């Protein structure tokens, strides 16, 4: 560390110059750069650190590429002529080479003809720091932000000086904030009480775990019982700041839990929506609902297999495909089995359970009992980082959005279209609807098809969250029945609110009770809830709802 300090000290003014004025940098001397690079071959690790600093100071346009390559173990020299090369991808044979000066391709050489230039931990730290300095000069604010974060890992004097300089020229507010945090962290180590208090005041607004831990250090006691930090004013300020950070972190983790709950709730709503239509509107208990979701998930898999080059689009293409396949299966079920059992809910339950077994076994026979892997497209992986304490994964975010879209579409279909009107009419008064000339049989088939199709769409979403296997449907089916019963049969809004609150309740309990117990609590709570409101949050009204 000391050596690094010493090295960086004289490197700093030049670096700062380079960082601020990249365009006017002195025309680099290729020969010097190459010979410095050549020294890397036989240098000891400590000499290498020196060389790295000289390379980054050289201002040569390929300096950054070379240092990155060295950090990633992609810098080699050829045994025959001792020339240094960057290797395109490590681990290949032969290795394709890149000229370190021009950064153009330089043919390829067998791997055993090349020797890697090694690094160790200390050297890598120096390299990262040097690259962070490069990063500060980047026009891309997110690169600058990463560079600042990297530099905050080791705040020595030259780094602080560089950060201070950057602070003056930085335009982006988030980078600025990060630099301010870094500077404040550095100022904590100073001796000026006023500056330290000000630093603590700045840090108070941070939510980062690192900052919190750093501040908490000020409150530590030394083994002899006295405080490590002797200044009481600083200590008191630090204590307040830690409490404040803890509060905001707790707040953000609360938001995160809430979001987890929402995303779990969305899954439940997505599943329950189809049920709300078949069970709620038609009074049919479809035990094969889970298996229709499974069909949707397998459709996603098949669509991906059919278009291997377009994983990103395949998910979107799978949505209508799954809707059609599950919907057609539903219509087939309605026409061949369920229509003979209207008015006998318990028998329908058993018959559809039989269908679910047949569907499960068919899938097992066709695709084997093993899980199929559905690829998550790039645009759905990763997470949205809102601040140091809160990051939201994209797939959960998209599930929530997707659920809301599906919900809106279903609502629109039911409220604004002819078929929706027919569906509502038949569910309210079958005989009257028939007298008005509505083909109730056809409407029944379409309603069941709609509910089943939505199950298929839910299956597409589930394929991104769980394993796609023959048992996919069973895992969620009981929960989603409970959502429908909880929300009130035949009420889509009830399903939405019921599902979301069940999801949130579940996730809120999880930290205290563990996943399994939380689930049990939710089930017990629901069983108790049904005692109080046997017909759910939004009970169906009117004569039609009696004795169903």
């Amino acid at each position, binding site marked *: 560390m000391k050596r690094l300090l010493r090295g960086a000290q004289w490197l700093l003014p030049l670096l700062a110059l380079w960082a601020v004025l990249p365009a006017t940098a002195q025309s680099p001397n290729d020969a010097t750069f190459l010979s410095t690079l050549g020294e890397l071959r036989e240098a000891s690790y400590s000499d290498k650190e020196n060389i790295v600093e000289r390379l980054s100071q050289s201002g040569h346009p390929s300096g950054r590429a070379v240092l990155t390559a060295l950090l990633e173990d992609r810098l080699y020299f050829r045994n025959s002529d001792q020339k240094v090369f960057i290797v395109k991808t490590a681990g290949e044979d032969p290795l394709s080479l890149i000229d370190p000066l021009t950064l153009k391709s330089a043919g390829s050489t067998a791997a055993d003809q090349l020797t890697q230039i090694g690094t160790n931990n200390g050297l890598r730290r120096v390299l990262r720091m040097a690259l962070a300095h490069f990063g500060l000069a980047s026009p891309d604010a997110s690169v600058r932000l990463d560079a600042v974060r990297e530099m905050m890992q080791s705040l020595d004097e030259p780094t602080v000086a560089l950060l201070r300089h950057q602070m003056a020229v930085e335009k982006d507010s988030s980078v600025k904030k990060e630099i301010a945090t870094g500077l404040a962290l550095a100022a904590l180590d100073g001796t000026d009480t006023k500056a330290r208090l000000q630093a603590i005041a700045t840090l108070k607004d941070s939510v980062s775990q690192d900052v919190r831990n750093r501040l908490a250090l000020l409150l530590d006691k030394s083994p002899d019982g006295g405080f490590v930090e002797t200044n009481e004013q600083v200590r008191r300020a630090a204590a307040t700041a830690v409490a404040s950070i803890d509060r905001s972190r707790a707040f953000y983790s609360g938001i995160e839990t809430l979001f987890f709950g929402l995303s779990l709730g969305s899954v439940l709503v997505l599943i329950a929506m189809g049920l709300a239509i078949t069970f709620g509107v038609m009074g049919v208990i479809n035990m094969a609902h889970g298996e229709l979701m499974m069909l949707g998930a397998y459709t996603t898999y098949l669509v991906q297999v059919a278009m291997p080059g377009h994983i990103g689009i395949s998910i979107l293409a799978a949505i209508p495909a799954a809707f059609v396949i599950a919907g057609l299966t539903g219509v087939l079920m309605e026409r061949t*089995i369920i229509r003979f059992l209207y008015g006998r809910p318990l028998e329908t339950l058993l018959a559809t359970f*039989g269908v679910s*077994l047949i569907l499960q076994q068919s899938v*097992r026979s066709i695709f084997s009992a093993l899980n199929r892997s559905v690829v998550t497209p790039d645009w759905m992986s990763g997470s949205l980082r809102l601040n140091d304490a809160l990051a939201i994964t994209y797939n959960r975010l998209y599930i929530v959005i997707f659920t809301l879209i599906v919900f809106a579409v279903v609502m629109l279909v039911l409220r604004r279209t002819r078929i929706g009107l027919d569906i509502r009419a038949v569910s309210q008064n079958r005989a009257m609807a028939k007298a008005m000339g509505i083909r109730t049989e056809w409407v029944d088939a379409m309603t069941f098809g709609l509910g089943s199709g939505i199950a298929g769409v839910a299956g597409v979403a589930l394929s991104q969250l769980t394993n796609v296997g023959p048992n996919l449907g069973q895992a969620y089916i009981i929960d989603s*029945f409970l959502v429908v019963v909880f929300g009130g049969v035949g009420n889509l809004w009830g399903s939405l609110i019921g599902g979301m609150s069940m999801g949130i309740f579940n996730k809120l309990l999880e930290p205290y009770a563990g996943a399994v117990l939380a689930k*049990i609590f939710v*089930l017990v709570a629901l069983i108790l809830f049904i005692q109080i409101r*046997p017909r759910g949050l939004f009970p169906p009204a009117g004569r039609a709802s009696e004795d*169903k």
Partner: protein
Amino acid sequence: MEQNKREGVTLWYPSASGDRGGTWLLAVLGLVAIGVPVFNQLVPVSSATHLSVFGITLIGKYLCYGMLALAIDLIWGYCGILSLGHAAFFALGGYAMGMYLMRQIGSRGVYGDPILPDFMVFLNWKSLPWFWHGFNHFPFALAMMVVAPGLLAFVFGWFAFRSRVTGVYFSIITQALTYALMLAFFRNDMGFGGNNGFTDFKDILGFDLHSDSTHVVLLVVTAVALAGSYLACRTIVESRAGRVMHAIRDAESRTRFLGYPVESFKVWIFVFSAVVAGIAGALYVPQIGIINPGEFAPINSIEAVIWVAVGGRGTLYGAIAGAVLVNYAKTYLTGAFPEVWLFALGALFVLVTLFLPRGIVGLVQARVKDK
């Protein structure tokens, strides 16, 4: 015979003019109780007609399932309560028996602890949890086999029926109940052996569970218990209370308005049914030799309902016949064509509900009538 047409299914009221199906059932059970000991103990092992322990276990299993089906038919066929969680009571009875059998192992377990069962030693528990005390005494365990399922049924039924949770709502929450119990029993810290459950039993009341004669006796006990529960259920449905149950099944609101305490009838019949299921489970465990949380799986309960539907709902003996037939088919098909079993079971569900709403008994009765 009086008939009542509702929900498109014709269900028979019990008639005073004899119980032919029941007579047949009791005769068959008597034959089993006499025949099994003869074919196992008296016929030499070399003979083709010798009944192996495997065969006895199988018959015992069918009879236990028959008893579970009987319990379901009592409430579904006669009181219109479709429980999709009845296997939970079966499993609870089984667990009570399992706890007794675990305590009987004593120091013969793998770890040789005289008090703690193996899985507790494995989990590094130091003392017996409170709810395990007393299970080393058979009478206490016997009481618990009845009390545990009965109490759960009472609490659950009291809450559910009092707030008038009926029909499919009741079915769904019973399913949730057994699902929740399954999740709970899978947990190691519940103190019921986690997902391994209880197994490796040694003896019952001092008799070796690995000997033929113990199995024979257990089977005879099961047959007697089944006959006894059949007669008890028959008595209930033929009694005045049984008449009220039919009324509840056919027109619940009307029965209530006539002044009958519908909820009490439902709760008590539900508790009785749960106790019968619990005893069936308790008899099942020593014969099969294992009990684990898989018994709580919702599919088990639903399968049991289909036995009743196949045999003939609302007949009692039909439910028992259905359980034996479907399970025999299951044993045969899972052995001969494992791929086909779920297809067959699924098709059975569909076909029976569509074409045989009164099950096999209905089919037979129709034949008899034609002649």
